[in-house]
């Protein structure tokens, strides 16, 4: 059998994150074009296209990809619309990578464009948006949905409560994570939140679902991003191409809150991380920069621990000691993370890839980790019921 081909990310692009009025199709077209310009490729050279729905709390269109292929004039050998919650676009990257490794296609563009119905507009006109609220409720099984759940917030709140209880983590330790992520976002010109945030402000913000406070939550946002994957042939001329050295996916047999076992543990994260690292030939200690999918401040340290960066219960003090920020042993979420970069969930994995690629190219501006060589991307779906981890490597590293 032929050896599998190497796969690289040759182009990345993202819009500013926030609330947009632009049509998601046009937002998507702009990031697709920018990612191709970034890679120096034309639509005629791209052989695959994968995307996602336009949002969770929005009336979304079906078959987003074929419309984009028509719009950009792409003759594809792979076309796929993915809806796997927060993992959607990393599933897409994973599938695209495998198809390129198999030699079936030479390149693939993954993009997502999200435009939600803004929460304040929903609150002003509940009846007009009731179908969206019902759709949000129907994400959960009958035994969760019956209690009126329309977001995973109460499940996350209970996980954070147990984590704090088991490891005697203080509310200030959790609040500090939000403060640090905001500090990171201050250096990101495209982040949704660019005002300084203090520990007092987080601690004084109201509970949305105790122990989670308002300023410890990520918010649903609009935005778009695109990542262009290529095989060796197309990467040859490009010193800025970043290699996907390892990638793995793992799921637990759960849907939102688990009916069995400890709800503050997420075994799929570690399984995906170990498999991706093994394939890459790197140890976790080699990772210079990581983008981690934490939707709430309290989930961040739990994810760092599940990935293996810290022993159970030790991440909160590591964060406070500066070990996850600029100058620390590993720079985690330099983009500002889900809390401060902003969180258009379908787009989020592509924002994470974009940040790590920019870091490994040395193009991350003020928030650059000096001489970053190895990067890690972690994404999840549902209530971290499934995880995907990718290990990226600077060319020639």
């Amino acid at each position, binding site marked *: 059998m032929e050896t599998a081909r190497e796969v690289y990310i040759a182009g990345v692009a993202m819009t500013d994150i926030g609330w947009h009025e632009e049509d998601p199709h046009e937002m998507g077209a702009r990031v697709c074009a920018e990612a191709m310009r970034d890679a120096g490729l034309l639509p005629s050279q791209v052989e695959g296209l994968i995307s996602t729905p336009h949002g969770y709390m929005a009336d979304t269109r079906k078959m987003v990809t074929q419309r984009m292929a028509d719009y950009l004039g792409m003759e594809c050998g792979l076309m796929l619309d993915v809806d796997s919650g927060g993992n959607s676009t990393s599933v897409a990257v994973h599938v695209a990578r495998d198809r390129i490794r198999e030699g079936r296609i030479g390149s693939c563009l993954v993009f997502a464009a999200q435009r939600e119905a803004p929460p304040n507009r929903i609150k002003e006109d509940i009846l007009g948006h009731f179908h969206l609220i*019902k759709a949000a409720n129907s994400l959960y099984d*009958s035994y969760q949905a*019956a209690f009126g759940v329309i977001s995973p917030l109460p499940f996350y709140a*209970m996980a954070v*409560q147990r984590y704090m209880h088991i490891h005697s983590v203080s509310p200030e330790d959790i609040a500090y994570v939000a403060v640090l992520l905001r500090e990171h976002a201050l250096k990101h010109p495209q982040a949704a939140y660019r005002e300084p945030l203090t520990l007092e402000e987080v601690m004084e913000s109201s509970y949305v679902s*105790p122990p989670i406070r308002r300023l410890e939550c990520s918010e649903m946002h609009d935005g778009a991003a695109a990542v262009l994957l290529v095989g060796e042939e197309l990467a040859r001329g490009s010193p800025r191409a970043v290699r996907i050295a390892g990638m793995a996916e793992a799921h637990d047999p759960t849907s939102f809150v688990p*009916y069995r076992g400890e709800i503050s543990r997420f075994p799929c994260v570690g399984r995906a991380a170990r498999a991706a690292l093994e394939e890459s030939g790197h140890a976790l200690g080699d990772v210079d920069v990581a983008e981690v999918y934490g939707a709430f401040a309290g989930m961040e340290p739990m994810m760092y621990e599940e990935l293996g960066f810290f022993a159970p219960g030790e991440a909160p003090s590591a964060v406070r000691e500066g070990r996850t920020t600029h100058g620390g042993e590993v720079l985690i979420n330099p983009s500002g993370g889900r809390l401060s970069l902003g969180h258009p969930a379908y787009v989020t994995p592509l924002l994470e890839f974009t940040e790590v690629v920019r870091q490994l190219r040395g193009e991350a501006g003020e928030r650059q980790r000096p001489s970053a060589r190895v990067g890690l991307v972690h994404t999840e779906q549902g209530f971290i019921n499934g995880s995907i981890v990718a290990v990226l490597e600077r060319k020639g590293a």
Partner: protein
Amino acid sequence: MQDKAAEEFFALLARGEFRTTRCRGCGETHYPPRVVCPACLGEDMEWVDLPREGTLVAFTQQRDAMRCRRPEVLGLVELEGIGNVFTRIDAPLEDLRIGTRVAFDTWTSPDGVVLHQFRPRS
């Protein structure tokens, strides 16, 4: 509550019964109830009583939700040998502790649906 197992579960609950499915083929008890047994893949089920006492694993309060007129306390109750039940909790948040023993009751929502709730055992 569109699926058949859930329809039966909530219909039983409306009569004050707290039950789930057990596989007649292999004897496995499931929560939530199912029409297919994940242990032996059999489809022959009987309904059996769930324990009416359990241990509070975690709890929180939900503000923005359907079927809520005011913030509701929700929690996860571990039933011995069964697993975790996601449920309404009938007690103020500040009175609750992880590990508290709680007992089953029913609760009728503002829109007339009978659900389960647990409250600390007095």
